[in-house]
């Protein structure tokens, strides 16, 4: 019961954060709501037993990626969003499409997935085991991602550096 309670509380926080992201007009508020979503997701991961994933979620997502977002928002001094009407298509087709799609998926999941219950910490993901998996079964993808990250860093430096300026931008990747 406690499990369900915790799940529901943080799930609600999660959804509230996500909805807030949509409702808020200032990007920094959206960013902070996203941080909230990520934090509560980390708790959900903990509930599922994936403690390492949870920690990394906080460190990488909330601690690095979102800081980067906030940093860019501050750097560009992004103001409130304009209410421009650029796209009727998005409203006419897209939003109903999303609604239909998600309702269908939710229906399928609830009605037909036949998945069982999970207990707290159903599948512990200790760092040791995950590291073992990463460096054995997923070694190639791991290395490929490292190359990807390297490329991303270089690309970011090239893109963000002022054309002509000698000093490359020193944001982290």
């Amino acid at each position, binding site marked *: 019961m406690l499990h369900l309670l915790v799940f529901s509380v943080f*799930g609600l926080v999660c959804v509230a954060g*996500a909805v807030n992201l949509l409702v808020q007009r200032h990007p920094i508020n959206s960013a902070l709501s996203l941080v909230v979503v990520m934090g509560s997701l980390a708790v959900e991961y903990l509930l*599922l037993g994936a403690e390492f994933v949870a920690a990394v979620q906080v460190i990488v*997502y909330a601690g690095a990626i979102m800081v980067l977002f906030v940093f860019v928002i501050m750097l560009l001094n992004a103001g409130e969003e304009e*209410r421009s*009407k650029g796209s009727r298509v998005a409203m006419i087709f897209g939003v109903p499409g999303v609604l239909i799609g998600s309702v269908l998926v939710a229906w399928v999941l609830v009605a037909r997935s036949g998945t069982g*219950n999970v207990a707290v910490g*159903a599948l512990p993901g200790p760092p040791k085991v995950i590291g073992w998996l990463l460096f054995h079964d997923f070694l190639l993808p791991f290395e490929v991602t490292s190359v*990807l990250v390297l490329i991303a860093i270089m690309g970011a430096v090239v893109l963000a550096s002022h054309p002509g300026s000698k000093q490359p931008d020193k944001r982290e990747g």
Partner: protein
Amino acid sequence: MVPLSYYLVLSGILFACGVTGFLIKRNIITVFMSIELMLNGVNLSFVAFAAQWHALSGQVFVFFVMVVAAAEATVGLAIIIAVYRTRETLNVDRINLLKL
């Protein structure tokens, strides 16, 4: 005990919120955040399925998603900065020339 489908539904809701954000938000940074939100939704379902099938590879995938998300955010934000420098706007409705 929580039915696994709850997790999946939660992940679906997050994903749908992400898509909706992508559709209705005008600020390109927010649009980017919506993408991150979608990725988070997917991550949750990964972890949930990992718990269901007792396969840790599901959690490993989350790491890859995170790494890719980090790379994507870096490059994406760099692009945003470059776009902002040339077009002086962050509104996606005004960035419609498909070139800088």
